[in-house]
């Protein structure tokens, strides 16, 4: 035991030094450290990574001290600072001042708050002892004091402080009890005047003996304790049982995703409506031209495409946080571990993989919960194989082409696509774990936290945090990609073809009354339609043509619309993306795609959902795909030589290609960030592209 200088954290800096003091928050997992961080910082925080690692750190600011704002670093939860795990390495570096979250200068913290769980004092004191050996001003916060008291465990803060040689506070982050005292006590925090032993065995004995001294009394009766244990045992049995546990898990996940899908529909519809209105506003305010196109089709569509994912992401993390808080997720991880372990993935991978069926972005973000680096990387790499909602329009179109008028077979095709994605994903994980991510699968060992009611506040803040992080990181990439895609599709501006000019001339003539509407329609090759003149109108049957007179303005409108369609088709085919489509045609020919389909495939490289709308523009000149008639026109489209674009082998080929291909630039951007390097994104793209091409070629060859 050694004496230390008694300079408090508040006095360690000169009065001129105005940089915020830095406090590091360390603690075991499941000690309520995040709840405490949320209590201290509220919404004044952001999530960032430690450079070169996949470890995240939340940085927040709290007030209340004598020298202004305090910067709080929420370090990863660890059982010991001395383990050879990424989390422990990061904590060691942050406490030594050699590592800091991205954007913050690397310096040792001015103080450490060690959060310990009042209900497992002895084990938590081991970490506290390791932190005290760092010789930094330290405050020990004993959290969950309310739960401990309910169990009849009474902690003597004085005895604990005496043994540790530093300030000790008893708090409950859940109820807020004692939280207000933290800033004041932190100000007085000094380097502890005792140094725990360094030897592993000795520090364990020191922790045990201190815990025994500090646990003033236990008032819970043997019977109450036995009842509590029996209750927990029964729940653990049910939730980890091979059959019952799997059924419960299926039920919980079905409820979770049904809830997310159904609840997210409303905010997603509102967001789409808002962006449609914004597009309309741009249309009304700005004259037609490049700026108008850029804003309405590039920026507004880009921001809309980002924000529309937000409800799903926020809801997913909200529900996951609630589930995690109850203690259930730790049990569920064991159920899924049995299923995924043969493929080199841990049970922790299940939630990210399941989330990826909605969208790979939240799925990849959820991979942060996977403790082993190799297993985390393998899950990130294969998550995009899961069928996300953006693939559904393509599946629907192709299933319709393959099995027209047979909903049962269409449904079977859908299920087959989902299954193919899952099989390709888990087999790819197996390949990765046997090659580049080789290493023994770590058998799972997890602390099973006590069952308790979830904390709504923590869930809301987590959801807000994840949503903001998504917008700040992935969102900017998505916006950029949308703008680039728009540019490739919209440029270079070309003169309309002669046929378009001719049609516009005919329209002008019929409007002026110089030719008969019927003659004009015949000359323009446009079929007269009943309705408002839109493409979606019903063509007038030949034998009823005489029954309805088409007036001049209506005929002119129909001809002009046809001219616009032809102009859009021509512009698309001569745009940069169109030229790329022609250039890439030889590559895609072996899997059955002509230049038009190549345009569709290339456009959907950035986001696969644009395939159907791109094909609609290429084939019909209309961007909307809400109309059944346009989808039908796309399905039955033919080339100039009369052969159909979508044959059965082509449709199979496209279906397999879209199941396996990596066609989502935002996902690639997120993979690079979460996996800690662009090389992982490149590998993901290359592997999925090769597999998609091979799969499509096999499908095309077999069905041809």
């Amino acid at each position, binding site marked *: 035991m050694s004496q230390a200088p008694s300079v408090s954290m508040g006095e360690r800096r000169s009065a001129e030094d105005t940089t915020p003091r830095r406090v590091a928050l360390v603690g075991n997992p499941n000690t309520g450290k995040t709840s405490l961080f949320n209590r201290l910082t509220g919404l004044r925080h952001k999530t960032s990574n430690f450079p070169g690692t996949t470890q995240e750190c939340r940085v927040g600011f709290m007030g209340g001290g004598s020298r202004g704002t305090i910067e709080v670093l929420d370090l990863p939860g660890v059982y010991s600072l001395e383990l050879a795990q990424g989390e422990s390495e990061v904590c060691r570096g942050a406490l030594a001042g050699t590592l800091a979250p991205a954007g913050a200068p690397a310096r040792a913290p001015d103080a450490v708050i060690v959060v310990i769980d009042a209900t497992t*004092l002895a*084990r938590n004191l081991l970490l506290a002892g390791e932190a005290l050996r760092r010789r930094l001003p330290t405050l020990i916060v004993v959290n969950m004091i309310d739960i401990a008291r309910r169990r009849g465990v009474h902690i003597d803060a004085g005895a604990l402080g005496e043994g540790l040689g530093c300030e000790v506070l008893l708090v409950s982050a859940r109820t807020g009890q004692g939280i207000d005292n933290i800033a004041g006590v932190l100000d007085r925090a000094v380097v502890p005047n005792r140094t725990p032993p360094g030897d592993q*065995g000795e520090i364990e*004995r020191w922790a045990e003996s201190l815990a*025994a001294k500090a646990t003033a009394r236990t008032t819970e009766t043997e019977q109450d304790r036995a009842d509590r244990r029996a209750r927990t045992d029964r729940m653990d049995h049910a939730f980890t049982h091979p059959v019952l546990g799997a059924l419960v898990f299926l039920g919980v996940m079905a409820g979770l995703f049904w809830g997310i899908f159904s609840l997210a529909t409303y905010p997603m519809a509102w967001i789409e409506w808002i962006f449609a209105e914004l597009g309309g506003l741009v249309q009304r305010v700005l004259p037609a031209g490049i700026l108008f196109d850029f804003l309405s089709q590039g920026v507004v569509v880009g921001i809309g495409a980002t924000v529309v994912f937000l409800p799903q992401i926020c809801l997913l993390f909200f529900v996951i946080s609630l589930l995690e808080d109850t203690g259930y997720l*730790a049990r569920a991880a*064991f159920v899924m571990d049995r299923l995924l372990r043969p493929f080199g993935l841990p049970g922790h991978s299940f939630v990210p993989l399941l989330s990826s069926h909605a969208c790979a972005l939240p799925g990849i973000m959820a991979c942060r919960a996977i403790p082993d680096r190799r297993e985390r990387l393998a899950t990130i790499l294969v998550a995009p194989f899961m069928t996300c909602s953006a693939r559904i329009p393509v599946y629907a179109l192709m299933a319709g082409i393959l099995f027209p008028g047979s909903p049962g077979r269409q449904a079977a095709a859908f299920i087959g696509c989902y299954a193919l994605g899952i099989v390709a994903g888990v087999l790819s994980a197996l390949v990765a774990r046997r090659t580049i991510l080789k290493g023994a699968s770590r*058998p799972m060992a997890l602390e*099973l936290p006590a069952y308790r009611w979830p904390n709504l506040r923590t869930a809301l803040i987590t959801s807000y945090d994840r949503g903001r992080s998504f917008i700040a990181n992935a969102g900017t990439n998505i916006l950029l990609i949308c703008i680039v895609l728009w540019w490739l599709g919209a440029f270079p501006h070309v003169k309309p073809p002669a046929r378009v000019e001719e049609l516009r001339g005919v329209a002008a003539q019929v409007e002026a009354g110089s030719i008969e509407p019927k003659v004009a329609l015949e000359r323009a090759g446009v079929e007269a339609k009943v309705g408002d003149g839109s493409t979606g109108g019903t063509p007038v049957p030949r034998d009823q043509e005489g029954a309805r007179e088409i007036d001049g303005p209506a005929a002119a409108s129909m001809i002009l619309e046809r001219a616009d369609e032809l102009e859009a088709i021509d512009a698309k085919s001569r745009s940069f993306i169109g030229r790329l489509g022609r250039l890439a045609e030889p590559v895609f020919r072996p899997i059955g795609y002509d230049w038009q389909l190549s345009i569709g495939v290339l456009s959907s490289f950035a986001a696969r959902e644009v395939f159907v709308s791109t094909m609609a523009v290429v084939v019909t000149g209309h961007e909307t795909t809400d109309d059944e008639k346009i989808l039908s026109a796309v399905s039955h489209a033919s080339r100039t030589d009369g052969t159909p674009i979508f044959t059965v082998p082509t449709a199979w080929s496209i279906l397999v290609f879209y199941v396996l291909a990596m066609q989502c630039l935002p996902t690639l951007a997120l993979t690079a960030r979460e996996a800690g390097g662009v090389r992982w994104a490149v590998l993901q793209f290359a592997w999925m592209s090769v597999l998609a091409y091979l799969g499509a070629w096999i499908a095309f060859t077999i069905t041809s």
Partner: protein
Amino acid sequence: MSTAVESQPLNAEPCEFRDQCPRECCPTDTKGQPVTGRRLSDLRPGDLASVCETCLDADDANLLRAMGLRPNATLRVCRLGDPCIIEVHTAAGGGCSCRIGMARELASRVMVVVGATAGPAGTSDTKPVV
């Protein structure tokens, strides 16, 4: 993590991992003779036991130790199979315990002595725990 323990082995069979033990960590008694504990996975639900050694690689062994599974720590078996769930008691007693779930593979490499007594980890102090 080689630890001398004074517990009387209940199982006469030698530890089956001794030949492949990655760290030659199989326990010895005070006379240097190998202690033959029982595998945690061989106990029955409800059994109380004391940890004598973990025949695991350093990373897993250190993680389990940091989670509370220290030499001489007293545990209660809550569930056997995959996962094996145990409740680790501490000297503080009372409500102070934590639950750990582990794959069967890990549980089969944790050697224990049944009918344990609780005491501060690594000591032979005894204090009955039920």
